[in-house]
């Protein structure tokens, strides 16, 4: 008699003897991928915002990630590898997190009705986490594909041209809000979900975590908007020389080293 797992599962008896351990692992993987992605986005924002310190600073960060200061020349393929890892994490995280979405009108209506009645911050924040998570399927995909296939086109002029002359700024503006809301709420929720930093007074910790969450969201939104404005300004100034690569004065031929 064949009792292979697919047959047992097909009969709806997969958990008859012993419950699958997969839900536990999936729960941990959902949290872990979310954590890594959220922390990556913090780092990403700091690197991208280097443009606020000047074109040379942003160029230096870019070239650092391309291995220029290690190998003596730039390998944009390194960026593609990092992007590929992020894409993988994003796909896994999205596949697991989508399980929590309202999946039909009845669930959506019930949740929204409950949320409006309760006026409970964490319940409302989850709804925005769901909305921004859904938006990120579509907003993150073009950006990631672009970075994956054209990693060499990152730089003070290259990025600014993309933002302004190639009209990517509306996507980046939406992406900024979606990422900061989703990631900020997500990190807070991770902490309360697993009981991190709970200490002797978990309620006080939760209030502090919530305050920190809002402070970080405001900080990263402000930093992101200032950064996007900087790229737009450079993009406008550089609009008549679209496609020109940025080369710092210090590495231009004839420069004194």
């Amino acid at each position, binding site marked *: 008699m064949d009792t292979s797992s697919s047959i047992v599962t097909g009969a709806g008896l997969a*958990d008859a003897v*012993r*419950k*699958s*351990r*997969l*839900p*536990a*692992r*999936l*729960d*941990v993987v959902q949290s872990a991928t979310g954590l890594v992605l959220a922390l990556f986005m913090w780092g990403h924002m700091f690197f991208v915002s280097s443009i606020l310190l000047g074109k040379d600073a942003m160029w230096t960060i870019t070239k650092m990630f391309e291995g220029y200061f290690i190998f003596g020349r730039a390998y944009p393929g390194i960026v593609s590898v990092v992007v590929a890892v992020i894409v993988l994490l994003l796909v896994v995280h999205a596949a697991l997190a989508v*399980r*929590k979405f*309202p999946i039909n009108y009845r*669930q959506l209506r*019930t*949740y929204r009705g*409950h*949320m409006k*009645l*309760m*006026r*409970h911050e*964490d*319940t409302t924040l*989850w709804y925005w986490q769901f909305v921004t998570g859904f938006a990120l399927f579509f907003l993150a995909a073009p950006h990631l594909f672009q970075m994956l296939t054209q990693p060499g086109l990152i730089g003070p002029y290259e990025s600014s041209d993309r933002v302004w002359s190639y009209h990517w700024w509306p996507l980046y503006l939406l992406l900024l809000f979606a990422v900061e809301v989703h990631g900020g709420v997500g990190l807070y*929720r991770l902490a*309360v*979900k*697993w*009981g991190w930093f*709970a200490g002797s007074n*978990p309620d006080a910790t*939760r209030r502090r975590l919530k305050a920190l969450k809002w402070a970080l969201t405001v900080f990263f939104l402000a930093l992101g908007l200032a950064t996007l404005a900087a790229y737009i300004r450079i993009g406008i100034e550089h609009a008549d020389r679209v496609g020109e690569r940025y080369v710092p004065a210090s590495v231009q031929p004839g420069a004194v080293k």
Partner: protein
Amino acid sequence: MSMFRPTATHKVIPLVPADGAQPGNGGRIRVHAMRYNPRDPGNAPRLQTYELEQAEGMTLFIALSEIREKQDPSLQFDFVCRAGICGSCAMVINGRPGLACRTLTKAVGPDITLLPLPGFELIGDLSVNTGKWMRAMSERLEAWVHMKEAELDLTRIEARMEPELAEQIYELDRCIECGCCVAGCGTVRMREAFVGAVGLNKIARFRLDPRDTRDDDDFYELVGDDDGVFGCMSLLGCHDVCPKQLPLATQIAFVRRKMAAVGFR
């Protein structure tokens, strides 16, 4: 469900001393109660407004009793203990679940909207059958102390328990199964099979109990899936509305960590 009717001699003991308020001068309050009889075809849910004088230290339970006594004997609501112990009078008060007997009208008035607890079988108006839900939950989670048959000896003196541990168990045992955590949970509202905070708190309680011989593998069989602890989306509505201030957030996080660990063994 009790049909206790307060009499004229029924003595009112204020929960919290009113801040200098004199009896009878608390002003008028308006109670907007949901009226609906699910067994009456053609009957549609509607809010009915009752206006009454606010007495000193008046609780919602007292206000509702006065309404039923003097204005509308057909208004259905539940209560037994009037002291926040039985959990019968849980209802949605101005949007949030709470106990009518532990809520001062002064704190939520002068306009108070009352709805039946969602997520439970509606009997009528503000009365719901939480007992049916709680019984099903208890049976599903086997919420009782499990002992091995061979070790069961009723003549033997029960083993001693450290007072600290007894305190910890008692802290979680304070749950009165009022249903507020279920009604305040966006997850269980969307997915009715979700076990809810009351159930996860029971798992945490029996896991602490040294008399219960079940281990984490056994508890995993009960809550180790998306209808159990992994379905919790950490909205913490349960924690924030619990009228007994049970540490639900930390208990669910604790059960989650233990059940997640089983998944990697």
